[in-house]
C-alpha cells in the first residue's frame, strides 16, 4: 500500500524518457533488464538456471516543498530458478532418498557398555535411519513421522561420516516435505525457492525510497533517504566489517555475487547532517541510520537448495527434524568409552535433542536497529569514518539449556551440555571506523576498516549451554594498485587489489579434553586474503578477471576466473569458473562425549562437558569456513544480461 501511495503522489508512470533529459522535465527514467545465469557444478551438473527480470525506475521531482531536491527510486526484481524443476531429483520434489548411518566400529563389541550379553551389540556397517541398535525413550515410532525417504546424510556431499556423528536431513521443499522446516526462517516451498522475491516480505519490491535534501543555513543541509534500501558502510569488498546493516542473501551464489545484488534491502530511514567544510575538515557528515524494519536474518537457505552456505541449512534442518520427530544419529551411544572409538548408532525420540524453535525477533521499537556515523575528510585529505551500530546478529546463535525430554527416563528438564537448542539472534553492538589514504610512493590506495563487536555468540562445548559470548575484533586492510603489465596490455593498466581480512575472538576458549580439544570451534585468530587482478581490453568491452581467496586457518582457497564481454550497451555475456582447493571438511569436538545425563551418559553425579571426541559434524564447519565447506562446489558459469 505504501508503494501504491507513493506512486500516486508521483503521478502517472508511463512518461518514460531517457536519462538524457534535463532536470526540470521530471521524467521517469526506467531501465529494465533480463538476466539468465547458468551454473554447472562438478559431479552435479546443472546447479543454477536462474532467470531474473529487474526494473529500475527513478524520478527526480526537483525542488518540492521544503526540499531543494527530491527524488523517488524504485527497483523491482523477480527471479525464477528453473533448477528446482530441471534437477528435480537433486534440488526439487524428488530430491534425497533413504539413508543409512554409521554404526560404530564394525565388529567391535559394545555389549558391556549397555549391560547386554556379550556379542549382542556389535558395531556394524551403516544401518538404515530408524533402525539403530540403540533406541532411546519414545523412539519406537520414529519412522511414522520421520520415514526414511527424501533425505541425505548430513555433510555427505563433502565428507564421509568417518566415525563422527551424522543424521538424516530432509531435503525436499517444505511444501513437499515439512520435516525440519523452521517456521519463517527456513520453510520455503518450491515456489519460494524458485522465486524467492515472491514471499510474504514482498521482496519483489527490492528497493523503494524517497531521497531529498533540506537546505539549512551556512550551506549545510539535511539529507533524508527513507524507504526500502541498502545502506553501505565501509570501504572494502567482500568482507563485512562495517557493511553489516543489511542482511545478505547467500542463497544466490554463496559469497561470490556482487554485494548489491545479495544485500537484502530493509525499510530504513537515513538522516544525514551534511555540514560541509570547516576550518579543519574539508567535509563533515553525521549520519543516523534507523532500521525500523522487522528483523531479518541472513538468508542461509534451507537444505536441498544449490547454495547452502556452510551447509548450515542442512545442519539446522536435520536438527529440527530430530527435535520434532526423533531420528537416528550415527556413532553416538557409547562413543569414546572404548579406547576413544565411535559409539553405536542411536535413535532418539522427539523433543530430546535437536533444535526446538527459532526465535526471530518480532517487530517492536526495542528490536529496531540504530546506526551512527561521523564521516569526514580532513584538510590533509584523510578520508575517515567512525561508526557505531546496535543491531541484531544476522547469524543465529545455538543456545542450549532448553527444556527437553530425558531420553532415558522420559522426564522433562534442562540438561547441561545437551545438544538441544533454540536459535536466537542476540543483540550486538559494534564500534568501528574506516579510512583510506593515498600511498604515492607505491602508486596505491590503502583502505582500512576495523570494528569491535560485543554480544556475538559462538558455539563452545565447554559451556553448559554450549555457547559463549565473545567480543570480536575484525579488520581489513586493502591495497589497490593500477599496474601496467605491458606484456599483456600496453595501453591499459590492470587493477591489482589485495585485501587481508582478520578476525580475533577476544574471549575465545579451548582446552584439551581426554579425547581431544574442546571449547569453541571458531579460530581464535584467522585471516582470509583476497587478490583481484582485473584487466580491460577493447575499450573496456572485454574484461578478464581473476579473483582469488584463501582462508589461512581453513587452508582452503578459491580461484574464480571470469570474462565479461559487453557485446553492446544492452547485452553483456559473462563466462566464469570457480575452483576451490585445499582442505575441505575439518573435525572438532562434537559433544558426543559430554555427560548431560549422569548415570546414563557417564558416571553419576554432576553433568560434565565433552571429553573431546570429534568428527566433521556438526562443529567442523566453523573451522572450514565458507570456502572449505564448499570445496566440492566447483562450477562453471555462463550469464547473459540484456537491457531492454
Amino acid at each position, binding site marked *: 500500500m505504501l508503494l501504491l501511495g507513493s506512486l500516486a503522489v508521483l503521478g502517472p508512470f508511463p512518461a518514460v524518457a*531517457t*536519462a*538524457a*533529459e*534535463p*532536470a526540470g522535465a521530471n521524467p521517469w527514467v526506467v*531501465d529494465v533488464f533480463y538476466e539468465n545465469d547458468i551454473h554447472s557444478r562438478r559431479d552435479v551438473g546443472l546447479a543454477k538456471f536462474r532467470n531474473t527480470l529487474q526494473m*529500475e525506475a*527513478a524520478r527526480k521531482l526537483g525542488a518540492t516543498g521544503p526540499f531543494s531536491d527530491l527524488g523517488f*527510486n524504485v527497483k523491482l526484481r523477480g527471479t525464477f530458478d528453473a533448477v528446482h524443476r530441471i534437477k528435480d531429483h537433486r534440488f526439487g520434489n524428488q530430491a534425497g532418498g533413504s539413508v543409512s548411518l554409521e554404526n560404530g566400529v564394525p565388529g567391535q563389541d559394545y555389549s558391556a557398555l549397555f549391560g547386554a550379553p556379550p556379542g549382542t551389540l556389535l558395531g556394524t556397517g551403516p544401518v538404515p535411519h530408524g533402525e539403530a541398535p540403540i533406541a532411546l525413550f519414545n523412539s519406537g515410532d520414529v519412522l511414522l513421522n520421520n520415514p526414511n525417504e527424501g533425505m541425505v546424510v548430513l555433510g555427505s556431499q563433502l565428507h564421509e561420516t568417518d566415525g563422527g556423528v551424522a543424521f538424516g536431513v530432509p531435503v525436499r521443499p517444505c511444501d513437499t516435505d515439512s520435516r525440519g522446516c523452521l517456521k519463517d526462517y527456513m520453510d520455503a516451498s518450491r515456489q519460494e525457492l524458485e522465486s524467492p522475491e515472491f514471499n510474504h516480505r514482498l521482496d519483489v519490491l527490492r528497493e523503494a525510497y524517497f*531521497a531529498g535534501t533540506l537546505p539549512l543555513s551556512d550551506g549545510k*543541509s539535511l*539529507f533524508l533517504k527513507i524507504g526500502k534500501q541498502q545502506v*553501505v558502510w565501509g*570501504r572494502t569488498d567482500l568482507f563485512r566489517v562495517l557493511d553489516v546493516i543489511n542482511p545478505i542473501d547467500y542463497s544466490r551464489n554463496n559469497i561470490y555475487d*556482487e*554485494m*548489491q545484488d545479495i544485500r537484502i534491502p530493509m525499510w530504513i530511514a537515513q538522516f*544525514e547532517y*551534511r555540514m*560541509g*567544510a*570547516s*576550518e579543519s*575538515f*574539508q*567535509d563533515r*557528515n553525521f549520519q543516523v541510520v534507523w532500521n525500523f524494519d522487522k528483523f531479518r536474518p541472513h538468508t542461509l537457505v534451507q537444505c536441498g537448495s544449490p547454495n547452502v552456505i556452510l551447509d548450515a541449512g542442512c545442519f539446522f534442518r536435520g536438527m529440527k527434524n530430530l527435535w520434532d520427530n526423533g531420528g537416528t544419529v550415527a556413532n553416538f551411544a557409547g562413543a569414546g568409552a572404548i579406547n576413544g572409538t565411535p559409539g553405536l548408532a542411536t535413535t532418539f525420540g522427539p523433543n530430546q535433542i535437536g533444535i526446538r524453535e527459532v526465535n526471530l525477533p518480532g517487530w517492536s521499537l526495542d528490536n529496531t536497529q540504530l546506526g551512527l556515523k561521523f*564521516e569526514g*575528510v580532513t*584538510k*590533509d*585529505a584523510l*578520508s575517515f569514518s567512525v561508526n557505531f551500530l546496535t543491531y541484531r546478529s544476522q547469524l543465529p546463535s545455538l543456545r542450549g539449556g532448553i527444556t527437553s525430554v530425558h531420553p532415558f527416563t522420559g522426564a522433562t528438564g534442562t540438561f547441561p551440555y545437551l545438544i538441544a537448542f533454540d536459535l536466537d539472534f542476540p543483540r550486538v553492538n559494534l564500534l568501528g571506523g574506516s579510512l*583510506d*589514504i*593515498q600511498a*604515492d610512493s607505491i*602508486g*596505491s*590506495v590503502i*583502505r582500512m576498516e576495523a570494528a569491535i563487536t560485543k554480544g556475538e555468540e559462538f558455539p563452545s562445548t565447554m559451556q553448559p549451554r554450549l555457547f559463549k559470548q565473545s567480543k570480536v575484533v575484525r579488520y581489513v586492510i586493502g591495497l*589497490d*594498485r*593500477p*599496474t*601496467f603489465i605491458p606484456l599483456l596490455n600496453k*595501453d*591499459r*593498466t590492470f587493477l591489482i587489489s589485495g585485501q587481508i581480512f582478520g578476525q580475533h575472538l577476544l574471549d575465545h576458549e579451548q582446552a584439551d579434553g581426554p579425547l581431544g580439544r574442546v571449547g569453541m570451534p571458531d579460530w581464535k585468530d584467522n585471516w582470509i586474503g583476497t587478490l583481484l587482478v582485473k584487466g*580491460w581490453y*577493447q*575499450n*573496456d*568491452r572485454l574484461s578478464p578477471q581473476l579473483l582469488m581467496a584463501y582462508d589461512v586457518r581453513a587452508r582452503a582457497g578459491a580461484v574464480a576466473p571470469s570474462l565479461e564481454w*559487453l557485446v*553492446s*550497451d544492452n547485452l*553483456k555475456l559473462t563466462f566464469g569458473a570457480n575452483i576451490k582447493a585445499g582442505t575441505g571438511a575439518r573435525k572438532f569436538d562434537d559433544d558426543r562425549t559430554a555427560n548431560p545425563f549422569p548415570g546414563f551418559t557417564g558416571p553419576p553425579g554432576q553433568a560434565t562437558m565433552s571429553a573431546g571426541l570429534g568428527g566433521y559434524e556438526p562443529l567442523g564447519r566453523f573451522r572450514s569456513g565458507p570456502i572449505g565447506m564448499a570445496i566440492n562446489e566447483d562450477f562453471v558459469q555462463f550469464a547473459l544480461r540484456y*537491457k531492454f
Partner: protein
Amino acid sequence: MKRLWMGCSLLAAVACSSIAFGATDADVDRSFFPYRTSVPAFPGVKPGLVIGKDNVEPFRNAVDPALYQHLKDGWLEIPVGPTTSLDLHPNYVDATRKNLNKVKLGAQPGEITGFVAGRPFPEEPDLSDPRAGEKLAWNFKYLINYGDNGAITPFYWTFRDLNSGKIERRLNFSFHFLNYKHRVIEPPLPEVTPNPSQLFRGIYAKVLEPLDVKNTQLLIQRFSDDLKRDDAYLYLGCQRRVRRLATGQVTDAFLGSDLMVEDFEGYNGRISDMVWTYKGTANMLAPFFNHNEQKLSDEFKEPDGYKFIAFGGKGGCFPIVSWQLRKMYVLEAKPVEAGHPISKRVYYVDSQTFTMSRTLIYDRKGELWKSFTVGKSLPDHHLPENKGSGAPVDDFFSMVDVQSRHCTTGQFKAHMGGKLTPVSLFSVQNMRGGD
C-alpha cells in the same frame, strides 16, 4: 618544416622587452583582444575555403602534423570560417589588469606566488625564457573555461571503430565544474568558504547511462598548492561504494574511452607533473565557431530543441564544424614521472582563451598515439543561457587513437553558471547519497 613563427618577432618586440620590465596594459590588451586591429593570415586561407585531401599541401603549416596527416588521408575536411574574437568576461580581464606583475614563479615548477585572479602571465611568451612554457601552463590552469562554474549535461561519449565507423558504445554523462578560488564572475567572490583544504577546483561527473556503468561517479579535487596531488574518488554504481583513486588511475583509460582523466579539458593534472616547453607561436586553424551556425546532429532529441555538433569523416570520428585561423601557442609537456604512459603531449593553445584546441599525444616510444581536438563555440551563439557568459563553450571533443584506429567522440550541451553546480555536489558524501 617551415612554419610562420612569430616568436619574438618585431611585432612582439615590445611584449618581449616588457618581460624584463613587467607586463603592461598593452600586454593585457594584446592577450585578450588579439584580433582588435587585425586577424591572423595564412596564404590562401580565407573563409569559404574547404581543405581536404586534394588541396591540403599548401596549408600544411596551417595545421598541426597529425591533422595534416588526417587531412591528407582523407579522414576529414575542414571548412574555413572567419576569425572571430572570443572576448572573455570583463571581470576576468579586469582582474588580470588589477593584479598585473604581482605573480611570480617559485623556485621549482608548480610554485607560484602573488596570484589573486585573472590571467597570471598575460605577456607574450619568449622563446628565450626557459620558464615560458610553465607560464603558459599557469595561464591555462587559471583560464575561465566554464566561468567560475558550469556543467555539461547531457554529455554523450561515443566509442567508435575508426575503420568501420561502427558505434561500439555510448555513455551519457553529467559533468560539473566549480572553481573554489580566484572567482571573478559569480558569488561567492572571490572564493568559496570555508575551504580548509585550500581546494582550487572541483570536477564532478556522473554516468547517466548505459545501465552497466550507470551512477558511476567521479570527483576530482584539485588543490591550490600545485605540489599537492589531486584527490580523486570514484563511486562505482555496481558496488555502491566510493573508492579513492590511486595515482595511476588518472593516467588510465577512463571507463574504456580513449581518454584518460588527465586528458580532460586538454590537461587535467598538476603543472609540476610535467616539464613545460614553449615551442613558438603560429597562425593556425582551430575549431572555433558559432554553434548555432553549424550543421547540427538530429541524433539526440532535447526538449528545448537544442542540437548537438554532428560528427562525420573517417569512422564518424571527426566533427563537422568550421575552423578559423587563430594565433596559437605551441606548448610541449613531458611527464616528470618515468612510468607515465606517454612520452609527451604537444598542445596548440589558443592565445586569446588559453584553451587547448588541439593536442597530440605521443606514446612512450615517441610515436604519435592520439590526436585530440576540442571545439569551442562562442558563447553568444549557443544556448540562450550562455549568452554573455564571456567564456568559451566546450562543444565537442574527438580523441582519435591512431594506433588502435579507434576514437571516442564527445557531444556537449554546456551550461555556464552556477545553477547546476552547488558546492555540495563536490563532496564524497554527495556521491554516497545518490542512488
